[in-house]
């Protein structure tokens, strides 16, 4: 294990170096700041316009949007992490040496989390500046949200890595990510839409279809990393400790299962350049 850890650290260091010198990380951080700034500005206008004197955790909603952007970056970057190396043949070369499937996958995973934390650090610096200039201040829930966001990012990253292990080309990985993410988001929107429908206004066949869709969604809830994101946001917003801990444990289990699946998929698909 100690030698594997040396390998993980070496690959992680290389990956981190590559991320720091690429634009992607900074573009994601900029988008995260811009999106949260827009939401933050809306809040300020609301406070001013409605003469609100007290507002609970005003930074949380902008933070959620920043987390979504950073987590999406984690998913996108991890979804090409393995296929990019396979496509270029560099993954094969790594395996000439003392590198195994688990060490490569863990190195990519940890590097993704580090990149996520860097984006969140930049976002927090921006939030600190905004909190000081507006006098809205930080609340403890901000810290809770940041901690939980790491678990959400781990779900996104492990999901992206698993998708990446299925393909051998960068382009295919990106297409697969778009299709799968689009599908999962579409199903979540469908779920929200179904919840707005009143059963008494529906025909019998429609109720039957709704039942099937609900069952599918119940399964997908465990598969989609977005469920952990929305559940996490709800847990922090509601201030529910049990939901918060449940979300964390769920995210850990999800990550372990997905990373294990990635190891087996990579073993099955192989590391050689096609």
């Amino acid at each position, binding site marked *: 294990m100690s*030698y594997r850890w040396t390998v993980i650290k070496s690959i992680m260091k290389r990956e981190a170096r590559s991320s720091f010198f690429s634009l992607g990380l900074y573009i994601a951080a900029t988008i995260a700041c811009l999106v949260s700034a827009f939401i933050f500005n809306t809040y300020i206008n609301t406070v001013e316009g409605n003469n609100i004197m007290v507002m609970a955790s005003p930074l949380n909603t902008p933070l959620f949007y920043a987390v979504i952007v950073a987590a999406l970056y984690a998913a996108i970057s991890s979804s090409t992490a393995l296929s990019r190396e396979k496509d270029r043949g560099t993954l094969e070369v790594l395996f*000439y040496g003392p590198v195994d499937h688990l060490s490569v996958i863990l190195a990519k995973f940890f590097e993704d989390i580090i990149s996520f934390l860097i984006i969140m650090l930049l976002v927090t610096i921006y939030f600190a500046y905004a909190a000081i200039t507006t006098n809205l201040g930080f609340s403890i829930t901000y810290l809770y949200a940041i901690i939980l966001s790491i678990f959400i990012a781990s779900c996104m990253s492990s999901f992206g890595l698993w998708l990446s292990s299925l393909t051998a080309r960068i382009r295919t990985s990106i297409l697969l990510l778009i299709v799968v993410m689009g599908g999962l988001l579409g199903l979540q929107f469908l779920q929200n839409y179904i919840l707005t429908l009143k059963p008494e206004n529906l025909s019998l066949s429609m109720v039957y279809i709704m039942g099937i869709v609900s069952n599918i969604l119940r399964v997908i809830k465990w598969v989609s990393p977005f469920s952990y994101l929305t559940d996490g946001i709800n847990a922090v917003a509601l201030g529910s400790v049990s939901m918060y801990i449940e979300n964390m444990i769920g995210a850990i289990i999800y990550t372990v299962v997905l990373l294990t699946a990635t190891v087996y998929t990579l073993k099955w698909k192989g590391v050689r350049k096609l």
Partner: protein
Amino acid sequence: MIRTENLCKKYEKVEAVKDLSISVEPGEIYGFLGPNGAGKTTTIMMILGILKPTSGKILVFNKDLYSDYFGIKRRVGVVSEVQYLYEDMTAYEYLSFFCDIYNVKNKKEKIEELLHKVDLYDRKDDLLGHYSRGMQQKIGFVRALLNDPELLILDEPVSGLDPTGIREVRDLILEENQRGRTVFMSSHILSEVERISHRVGIMNKGRLVAEDTMENLRKKLSSEVEIELEVDNFDVEAEKRLESLSFVNSVTKEDGKYLVRVKADKDYRGDLVNFVSAIGGNLKEIRKREMSLEDAFITITEKNISLFSSGEVSE
């Protein structure tokens, strides 16, 4: 160093490697020959654990790879035909990365020493994407030597290189072998393998069709031996008598010398000397013409596969 026993790799309908049993001994250069698609790279990938064998056994340093994966891999250096480098890294950064992976102590000294050796020290800060094919191949060698491996596995190491590059790589292989490293080298460039290998295994269509020293391989493959004779005082009558000898298949004259093709069952040079002396000829030179590995390879792969496979050509 490497031992495979009845190694097989099957892809749906294609059998890439069939019943391969080879043994690479410590300190030797083992040439693994065969035309493209013979199963050489598949075998190497199985030895490295990158491909899983369908059946059979592989031992590296007398151990199963997975009994000590990291330990065994740290004792092996690999150079492939194409280097697949991280083109956004400089040579120094790239080698430093692999030093970290192999946990090399004094990595700066090690990298500098090896870069000096391949004449790339002055280019150490250049991006690998700007390197020529030959330079990339050298970097591949440096990478493979960073961990002072006991075993070097080279997959088509000179393929695509110009003559100077080929010579440099050949010298490097010989030098590393003289330092005690065992070399397992696959190639389809026969002259290269012939020049440096102690033993050769020849693959064709997934099967090992021959494995032996160069000399024995040539012996096995020759049904006749060519002997050059330079004789004075040798007339047409003498030529006819030479041709009529029971062990002589044919006699031709080339550039004033006689090329005598004799049976390969024994060394007939003594008999020829006695014959020339008996008829009063003046023998100036007698020389056995060696069969090149290229000739042997073509003979094996195109003509004698069935003989080798069925064991009719025995040691």
